[in-house]
């Protein structure tokens, strides 16, 4: 009885509200499922696109930057950086990009790797700076 003592301090309305909110919070965990799968990976360096490839074709790519070669691996519908000459290796720790809008960046080696969705107009929606 002591353990549920705090519930007694709520008004009946509060209790109903808590149940509704709890359900909404649980539902919000489904949010990541609404993400669209990416279609292709686009690599740019110094604002120029230097490489484009579809995400469903398995391959390893060597990307040239000011510091040297950064290796990008495309596998199982995702892209990740597997080796890089940069000092902090932040880009490697960013893990895998697989959804439309996902981004990997290696700042020291001036590489930005973004995943784009299928439809052309759709994936620019999130960022009106780049439009």
């Amino acid at each position: 009885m002591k353990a549920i003592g705090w519930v007694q301090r709520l008004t009946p309305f509060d209790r109903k509200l808590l149940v509704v909110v709890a359900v909404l919070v649980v539902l919000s965990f489904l949010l990541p499922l609404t993400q669209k799968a990416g279609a292709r990976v686009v690599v740019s360096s110094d604002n120029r696109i230097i490489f484009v490839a579809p995400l469903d074709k398995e391959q390893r790519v060597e990307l040239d930057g000011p510091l040297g070669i950064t290796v990008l691996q495309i596998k199982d519908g995702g892209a990740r950086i597997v080796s890089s000459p940069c000092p902090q290796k932040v880009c490697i720790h960013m893990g895998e990009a697989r959804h439309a809008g996902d981004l990997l960046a290696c700042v020291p080696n001036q590489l930005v790797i973004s995943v784009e969705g299928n439809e052309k107009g759709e994936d620019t929606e999130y960022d009106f700076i780049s439009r």
Partner: protein
Amino acid sequence: MTSSAVDSPELEQVRRRVFLALFVALAVALHTVEVLLPNPLPWFRLGLANILALTALFSYGIQALWVVSIARILIGSLLLGSLFSPGFLLSLGGGLAANTLMSVGYKLWQNKIGPVGVSVLGALGHVTGQLLIAWLVVIRHPSIWMLLPFFLLFALISGIVNGLAADYLLASLYKHPAFAGLKKKQDISNRAAHLEG
């Protein structure tokens, strides 16, 4: 104590000002102490200062809520040296969203909603407002919204905890004769008396 239910309006007004100043001071103290607490995950804050905003709301109404929380954010950020920094914008955005939701909830369900209900609304508003500001100002990337479920879950828990704290605080404040003239007083002290009795 010479106060009674028939105090003059002037005395009632002075008393209200004094208590609001006290609530602001306590909220600033909690805001500052909370920053000193170890923080395993960035942005996860308990929002203890909101206890005082809730207390102000249930004692003196919606205007008092805004006074206490906006003053707390301004003074707290000034003390911590984060005024007008990105962190301050997050704090302010969260505070505005939280206050809006709390005011609407309080107004809409005036005689039914208690401190815990309002607190949970405020906590949810706070994280949503913060994430909105973070998305607009700091990281313009949609993946940031993937954090929302975790933030909401944490807000639900901290909202309940803060609401209960406010409920206890209100129940004991209302035993004091200085709060004898308040309207809202009735149901909270009734509920508390029922629990203790």
